[in-house]
Each structure stands twice: as C-alpha cells, then as structure tokens.
C-alpha cells in the first residue's frame, strides 16, 4: 500500500520539471468529470482554439497542465495547490463552479498567481472577494441580467413572475434582474426559488406563474434543469399565453437542441450568442465547427477569450506571475463577443449583452439577435484592491 503511495508521488514529482524561461506554464483547472463535465470540455476546446489562433506569433510557448476539479471545492483546491506549488505554473485558467472559485480564492491570492476565470460568475468574486490576481474573462451573474431588466421594462412588459433554482447563482441572477426591472417601472408579481437539482417537476411552479397575472416569466436555469424547465413550460402551453424570458443560459447552444421546438420563441439575454454578426465571431464559429462539428456556446467563447487575454498579456511583455497578473488587468480586444476590456476596479470583464430569440433554423435551432445592450461595468460592490501599476 505504502509503496503505491510513494510510486504515485514519485511519478508526480517527476512531472514537475521547471519551465524554461521563455515558456509560460498554464494550469488548466476544469471539471472533466461530475455534473459540469460538458462545460469543462467546451471551455478547454475553446481555450486550445484560442491558443492556436493567437499564440503562434507570440514568441513564447505555452505548456499546459490540466487538472480535473471534479466540481468539488476540496478537490479543486488540492489541484490548485499542486499546480502552484509543485508544477509551479505561471498562470491558472478555468474554474467552472463558484464553489471551487470560493475555495481556491484565498490561496491563489496569497500565492500571487494570476487566475483567469473562464466561467464561475459569482458576483462576490469580483466584488468583496476580488483580488488583483484574479481576472474574470467570463461574466458576473449580475452583469448578464441587469441590462435585461431595463430592456424588458422598455418593451412594455409591466408584470413579471420570476423563477430560479435556490442557490447563490440563481438568487444573484434574479436579484440583478429585479433591481433594474423595478427601477425601470416594472413590477415583480411573484418570485419562487425551486430546490436546486432536486426538482423533477416544475408543474407546481408553472401553475403558480400562470395564476399570478404576470405578463411574462423571467427565469434562470442551466443544464439539465434548463432543458426540463423549457420543455415543461411548453407542454403546459404557457409559451402561447405567457412569454418566457430568461438569462441566456436557459437556451444555451450547448443544449438548446435537446429542448427542441419547446425553446422556439424564448427570449433571453447573454454575453454571447453564436450568431453575433462580426468577422471575429464568424471566424471563431467556423473554426469551432470545424473542430467539433458543433456551434460554440458561451462557455467555448469564454475559454477562447481567456486564451486570447493570456496571449495579449504575454505580448505586452509580462513574463512572471506578478507582471502577468498586472498585464491581465489591462487587457482589451475585439473578440467574438465584441469589444472586451477588463475593469481595473473589479477585474471583471466589461462586455456587451445580447438579447436573442431562439428560432428554428436550417440545422435545428438557432439564435436571432434582437438587441445589443451596451457594456456596463459592474458596481464595485465592496472590491478594494491595489490599482494597476504601469
């Protein structure tokens, strides 16, 4: 027994070769097993595609060490420690779940290793818990939904019923929406949170929504719950009487085809839709389709842009952990999602939000972009950190 532990460790230490000076060692921390495994795969593909597209003329080679977080905070932290202390990576990229981000935050901050967050949207991560070493290239929960509140009120939708799973992300998404929606004159007539990943039947909540007298329903669901929700919503015929709006994860290209016709006509807002009309996006989509045969999702573009942010930081002359962290905070470029820049006050990405409708296309469902809402910086939200040094 003991021999095997030693063998395992011998093997592990054998891998920890110091990186050559011009190499950048990247620790890719994603779930490759567990409920978010599909998101991990999507982000990794996007990330590799991003490196392939931008790193060739960067003058450095990127060495990638990938680790599976298993969507478990303790495992994520153990892997982070390994990447930082043993593999001595220069930069970390990834993290899908906010729980894992919460677990690694203090350690990453203390160790002074730059981390590019490629998904986890917890508001606090770029709020009270912000760190000069943590830069988020994905989104914050509030950011995605705030513009939608104003927009829906402007469309003349006066009364809304909201639904979301009962966990931090669900509450943050709905609260951000409700804040701007009511500020713009809308009224929330009902609000329910469903037990997270324990709800098989949304019927009881749907009946409440339809009895609430609302003009529309605004929801946040993701993954398997999103599929079940959209299908059940449609099966009750609510699509015809009570239009469904939501955070764009509801109808993510990653699984919208599993929702089928039920998703048609659902209007959602997100920081990315594969049908955004721009050269940068079309090139990305084409490359992604060529690679996987599937249209990229928001998760893929997050990985792609994380890679690009890293390359840009390196190109700006950053070589070690501190200079990389500093450079990452100043990254800005036009990508598939449009113009992106990092807000130096919070280290969250500032990006436009797209309102899109899911419609039937030639090959299954596609996204029709209805509006591009202007990019807004998140409120500082208690974030205090050293300013960018030049």
């Amino acid at each position, binding site marked *: 027994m003991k021999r095997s532990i030693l063998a395992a460790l011998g093997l592990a230490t054998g891998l920890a070769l110091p990186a050559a000076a011009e190499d950048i060692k990247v620790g890719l921390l994603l779930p490759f097993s567990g*409920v978010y495994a599909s998101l991990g795969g999507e982000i990794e593909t996007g990330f590799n595609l991003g490196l392939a597209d931008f790193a060739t003329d960067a003058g450095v080679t990127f060495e990638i060490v990938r680790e599976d977080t298993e969507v478990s905070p303790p495992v994520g932290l153990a892997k982070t420690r390994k990447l930082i202390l043993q593999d001595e990576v220069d930069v970390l990229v990834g993290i899908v779940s906010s729980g894992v981000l919460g677990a690694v935050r203090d350690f990453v901050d203390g160790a002074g290793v730059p981390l590019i967050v490629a998904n986890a949207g917890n508001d606090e991560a770029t709020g009270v818990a912000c760190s000069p070493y943590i830069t988020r290239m994905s989104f914050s929960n509030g950011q995605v939904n705030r513009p939608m509140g104003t927009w829906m009120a402007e469309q003349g939708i006066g009364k809304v019923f909201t639904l979301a799973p009962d966990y931090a992300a669900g509450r943050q998404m709905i609260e951000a929406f409700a804040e701007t929606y009511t500020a713009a004159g809308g009224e929330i007539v009902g609000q329910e949170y*469903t*037990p997270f990943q324990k709800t*098989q039947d949304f019927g*009881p909540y749907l009946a409440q929504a339809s009895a609430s007298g609302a003009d529309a329903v605004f929801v946040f669901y993701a993954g398997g719950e*999103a599929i079940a929700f959209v*299908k059940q919503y449609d099966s009750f*015929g609510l699509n015809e009487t009570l239009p469904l709006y939501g955070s764009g994860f509801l109808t993510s290209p*990653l699984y919208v*085809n599993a929702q089928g016709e039920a998703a048609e006509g659902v209007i959602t807002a997100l920081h990315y839709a594969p049908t955004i009309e721009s050269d940068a996006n079309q090139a990305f989509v084409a490359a992604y389709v060529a690679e996987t045969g599937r249209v990229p999702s928001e998760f893929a573009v997050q990985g792609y842009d994380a890679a690009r942010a890293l390359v840009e930081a390196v190109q700006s002359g950053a070589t070690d952990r501190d200079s990389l962290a500093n450079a990452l905070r100043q990254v800005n470029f036009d990508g598939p999602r449009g113009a992106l820049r990092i807000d130096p006050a919070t280290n969250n990405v500032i990006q436009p939000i797209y309102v899109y409708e899911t419609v039937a296309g030639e090959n299954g469902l596609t996204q029709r972009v209805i509006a591009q809402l202007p990019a807004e910086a998140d409120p500082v939200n208690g974030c205090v950190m050293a300013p960018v040094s030049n």
Partner: protein
Amino acid sequence: MAHDLGFWVLQALNALQLSMLLFLLSIGLTVIFGLMHFVNLAHGSLYAMGAYVAASLAAVGGYWMGFFLAPVAVAGVGVLLYSGLIRRMRRAGPMAQVLVTFGLIFALLDLTRIIWGDLALAIDVPASLSGRLTLLGIEYPVYRLFIIALGVAIFATLAFVLGRTQIGAMIRAGVDNDCMAACLGINVERLFFIVFCVGCGLAGLSGAVAAPLLSVTPDMGLQILIPTLIVIVIGGLGSLRGAIAGSLIYGFVQTFGAVLAPQLASVLIYALLAAVLVIKPVGLFPAKG
C-alpha cells in the same frame, strides 16, 4: 395569492403525475427487495440507462420505438447483471449486495458518459401525445395524463398479477418466506431471475417515460435515487401497497409543499421521512409484519 378551484385541480394532477412516475420506478425496486432482501442502489442508474436507450432509439425510430424497446433493453441489462453479479451475491448478505450495487452506480454512470457523452439528450413527445386536453375546466398536457394513466395501468396489472395469478402467488409466498416457498417446490432461483429482470424493465420504462418530461443527463440516475428510496421506505419495503402509498405521499407533499410552503420545499419530504420512521420504524405498509 388566492387561487381558484382550477388551480388546485391542476396541482393535484401535477402531484398525481409525479407520484406515478415515482411509482413506476419504485415498484421494481421494492418487489426486488421484498423477494430477494436487497436494495439495488443501481436501480436509478438503470432508469438513466432506459432514458438514454429510449433517446437513442427515438432518434432513429421515433418515440414509440424507444418506449417499447428501452424497457426490453434494460431488462436485458438486468439479465446480464443477474447472471454476472447478483446471482453470485445471493448469499453474501445485504451489506455486500448494497455495495456491489453502489459500485455499479459508479460504473454505469461513467459507462453512459463514455457511450453517450456529457451533453444532455432529449426526446420529443410523440404527436399523438402532444398538446393539451381540457378537463374539469383546466387545460392539462396530454403527455402528463398519459403518465398518470400508465401508472394506474401498471398498478392495476401488478395488483392483478400479484393477487390473482399463479406466479403472483409464488412471489407472495417468496416474499413471506422464501424458505417455505422453496419447500413448496417453487423454483426460487428462477422466480428471482424473472422478478429482477421485470423490475429492471420497469426502471427502463420509467426512464423512457420520464425522458421527454425531463432531460437525459448522466447524473439523472443519481438524482432520482434518493426520491425513490424515500418512497419505498415511507411506504414500507416489499409491498405494492407501500409503493403506491409512498409515491402518492411523496408526489403530493412535494407538489403542495412547493405551493404552500416554498421555503420548506426541500426539507419537507426528509422531515416526513424521519417522522414516519420514528412512528413506524418499518414504513407504513411493510410486506411483513
């Protein structure tokens, strides 16, 4: 919020629908337990497998192909499991059996991921069952009514088979006392085999039926396992009556809990389970006194 009668009828139907879905799943598990005295924790995984097989078949030959063949396929998996593992575990004691099936959960979870990938799949409701029916002044999805009807039909069939037929009498004898059953010349081994495979088939059927309603994801088996266990433990292991009672209790508590006490929704059913076990440590309608 004040609600009219239609609202409550709607919620009652929702509760009934959820109950029947859980009934289809739990009946196989509970009868296998009653007869063979072990809890097949991999039952949920078989349900997931049923959903996946149905989704694959539906993509080729439409919903009904999945509906009819998925249970057969999962029963086939049951044959393999029985002859490969379960039969050899017959005398190994309940703990070992529980663990083998725990191992099976792990193995089957990754097998479905390897075969079908991490992305969620789905099945469309067939045209004949799509749309809504108006009854008692409310509109209700036909597919959900279909699930209720299917649950009632399976319940009636099982009640008939268990209560009125030769094989049912044998199963009842086996549940009461397998030793006695063997003495009466019943081929207990064959009986186990049949019941196990039928139980697996029912798990597959419930997977196929649930697929259009929910999403087909690798962890669906794990997510449904706990509700199923709660159902059979509340109802009492090994009895048809227990399974139906447990399912109805779970369905109604879950549905009306969500409406009337939403902040307690996730705790309510566990509290109920704890309460039942405190008052009746072997569930409401156990097969044996």
